[in-house]
């Protein structure tokens, strides 16, 4: 039985949640550990922390956050952002994270995927891919060079790489990625729903689970990510953070639509 996962994503800066989370009844809406516990209680299947800390001083606070989360939250969680070496990954995993997500560092030096996988196993290596439709090929499944309609971007979406999303996803898996976190830059922040065409194209071309990300505006979008996008998990931030919907509501909606989720 294939079951879908619902994964809230928290952006953290120097150990504090940013992008204004608006929950009633939280003592401290900026405390990632308190928020993580709240999502755990609501039925979240996993959590992802995206660390946007710029300074190296702030990195220690992230390790501390991981440590405190692992003491109180007993569902799997992933930490992404700023992990550039095996040592970085080791610190997060030893502190209590279950997986690390790598993005720019994996494109810069793909062997990093193999190195982390060799030491800690494929299951803890998530390769995050920021994808954007090629303007000249958005409607074409593949051009003469075999490239499909999406290009990999790095540095938080600022830098195009020329890499084809499908080819990069397959290469990442062959190097040892255990999961792909796929974000549509075209949809991110739009609330128009996942890019299900992109998601399905990637999900069908790799053997590992794919997390759909970018664009969720309502609960039906979560259903479509699984049924149309054929993703294994759906990531969302704002619809949960701003109290529009609880994870329980999301799962009740998905169950009613025929998607199998843990209640």
């Amino acid at each position, binding site marked *: *039985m*294939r*079951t*879908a*996962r619902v994964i809230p994503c928290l952006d953290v800066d120097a150990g504090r949640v940013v992008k204004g989370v608006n929950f009633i009844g939280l003592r401290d809406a900026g405390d990632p550990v308190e928020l993580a516990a709240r999502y*755990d209680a609501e039925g979240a*299947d996993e959590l992802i922390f995206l660390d946007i800390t710029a300074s190296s001083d702030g990195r220690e606070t992230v390790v501390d956050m991981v*440590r405190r989360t*692992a*003491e*109180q939250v*007993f*569902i*799997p969680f992933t930490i992404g952002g700023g992990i550039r070496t095996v040592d970085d990954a080791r610190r997060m*995993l*030893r*502190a*209590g*994270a*279950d997986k690390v997500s790598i993005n720019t560092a994996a494109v810069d030096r793909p062997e990093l995927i193999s190195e982390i996988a*060799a*030491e*800690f*196993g*494929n*299951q*803890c290596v998530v390769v995050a891919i920021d994808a954007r439709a090629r303007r000249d090929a958005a409607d074409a499944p593949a051009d003469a060079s075999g490239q499909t309609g999406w290009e990999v971007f790095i540095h938080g979406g600022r830098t195009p790489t020329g890499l084809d999303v499908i080819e990069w996803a397959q290469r990442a898996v062959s190097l040892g990625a*255990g*999961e792909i976190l796929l974000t549509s830059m075209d949809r991110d922040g739009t609330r128009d729903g996942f890019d299900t065409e992109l998601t399905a194209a990637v999900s069908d071309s790799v*053997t*590992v*689970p794919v997390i759909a990300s970018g664009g969720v505006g309502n609960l039906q979008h979560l259903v479509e990510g699984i049924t149309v996008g054929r993703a*294994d*998990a759906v990531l969302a931030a704002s619809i949960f953070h701003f109290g529009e919907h609880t994870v329980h509501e999301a799962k009740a909606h998905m169950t009613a639509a025929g998607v199998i989720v*843990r*209640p």
Partner: protein
Amino acid sequence: MTDPARPLVAVLDYGIGNLRSAQKAFEHAGADARLTADRSLIADADAVVLPGVGAFGACMDALRAAQLDEVAIEAAVAAAAGGRAFLGICVGMQMLYEGSDESPDHRGLGVLPGRLSLLPATVKRPQMQWNLLDINRPSSLFSTVDDPVWVYFVHSYAADASGADVVATCDYGGPVTAAVERGRMWATQFHPEKSGGTGLQMLQAFVAAAQQEV
């Protein structure tokens, strides 16, 4: 130093990834849980836990390098004979078998018969999701949880689901071994320490079993 109400659970530390969350989960479940490779501490413990994440061969190499392979075998065999409680988790369960197709050159601990084989190609690998347990015979590990029992799995290889010691399976491209029991030796393919409140209840049941006179 030890609190009689909090049994000492030795979580074998052989240098692999995330062991800290396992230790913290056992503490939540009422144990005095220590990450340790200290033989005298392990000898004094009320229960022994063999965790494991990553590749079968890498875990076996690390366990041998830490000189804990014989310790693990002795603890598991004694538990299977009704002695001190033992729990293997994920690759910690897989290592109890004779071997795995994941790492054909590595021998397992050989406490349980058979080898692990790759999950079918019809499903995504690893199985990285919550799944429902089919409990096929009563186990004290499950004595306090109510159906339906959802637990978190992360694995690509699995033990033969028709084995005599299998107490629970899940469905993932066919029946998959989820938990085994022999005497007071338990092992789970899923991660109880990552299965929320349900998993903590199972760990509490294990800690309670650790406190029973043997």
